[in-house]
């Protein structure tokens, strides 16, 4: 019943034997012990499980692990040395953009995508783009400010 699978996770090759019904999130958390990716709603709404698949944000709870055979997956653990993620972590801390932290791994992956893909995003656009990541602590104010801060920094540096 198990399917062999090989992919790249955080820059290193990874192999696993999984049932086809295993989600990418469960592959990461249960097989590869990368528990930084959080699982919230398990139906693609809350965004806590957002990771990068081939460079683009994806919901790991509704992405089958077997569908990622050969893919390049990056999780929050793989963004430790990423310069944009580093700036975002500092800004999240400065702007009080987290409290319990459950949404934060997915928030950071989405925030990084906003910063890199939409360098001219203003506040309404940032809020629109964040609609797919739920936070129940902060009311989003700090998160939006943190992202706007990094956007402004990067503009200043251009």
């Amino acid at each position, binding site marked *: *019943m198990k*399917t062999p699978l090989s992919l790249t996770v955080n820059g290193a090759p990874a192999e696993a034997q999984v*049932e*086809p*019904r295993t*989600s990418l999130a*469960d592959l990461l958390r249960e097989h590869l012990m990368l528990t930084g990716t959080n699982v919230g709603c*398990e*139906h*693609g709404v809350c*965004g806590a499980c*957002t990771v990068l*698949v081939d460079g*683009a*944000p*994806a*919901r790991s*709870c*509704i*992405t*089958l692990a*077997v*569908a990622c*055979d050969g893919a390049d997956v990056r999780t929050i653990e793989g963004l430790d040395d990423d310069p944009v993620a580093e700036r975002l972590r500092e800004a999240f801390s400065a702007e009080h953009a987290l409290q319990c932290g459950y949404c934060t791994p997915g928030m950071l992956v*989405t925030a990084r*995508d906003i910063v890199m893909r939409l360098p001219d995003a203003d506040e309404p656009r940032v809020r*629109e*783009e964040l*609609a*797919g*990541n739920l936070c129940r602590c902060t009311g989003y104010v700090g998160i939006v400010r943190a992202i706007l801060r990094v956007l402004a920094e990067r503009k200043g540096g251009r």
Partner: protein
Amino acid sequence: MKPARFAYERPRSLEAAIRLLADGGDGAKLIAGGQSLGPILNFRLAQPELLIDVRALPELGVARDEGDAVFLGAATTHSAVEDGRVPDPTRGLLPAVARTIAYRAVRNRGTLGGSLAHADPAADWVNAMALLDVEIVAQGPRGERRLRASDFVRGPLTTALAADEIVVGVRIRKLSARARWGQYKFNRKPGEFAEAIGGFVHDPELEVARALVGAIGDAPYVVADATRLDEPAMHAAVASAGLAPGTYEHQIHFVALKRAAAQARAA
């Protein structure tokens, strides 16, 4: 929740996928991006025996200019349309619709063909394609069929596809420079399914004037000749779509249609 057990195949060719689908009978289900099927599997609302992954089939990944139209393969993602990574024959309508589908992380995996075959009445592509009356190209053991989008969806989660047919792509006529369009999606939070969709497209060169009342819990309602679509005609269209005058549903669909038409006229 976690899905019930299923087997999984990733065929290398469209032909092999069609064979697997035909042999699998009722227990076989296609998956592409899995952004609608994934939640349904997790809730165990669907418990297929076999999933056939068609996402990487080369036949479904093409986007080509066919002169008077553009063909978009079924595995085209919403974000590819949003970003203009595939040709846009509609002068901005398709990218505008794409941007309102769910969330970026979903748009990066969800596909045009998957959305159409799933046929949620509130889905953005189901309604946009009915408004544009595109041709949906399907392939099965008996060959290719071209289905009109306006009668493709037969009801909630029900299409004109045979059980062994696969959506290969859509063929969308190019709107002319004189075309005007408007599209309004009413929802309470960006990215949610629509509570109402209004659509309007007028292209004098193609002799097209169509309007759409969408997200009505059933197949989209299309006004095939919307040349004279004043407010009483809009109310009549919404009523014909099955939404009784005086109800909340009637009102939000009327306003969506009115805003879509106003957007088109102002363009």
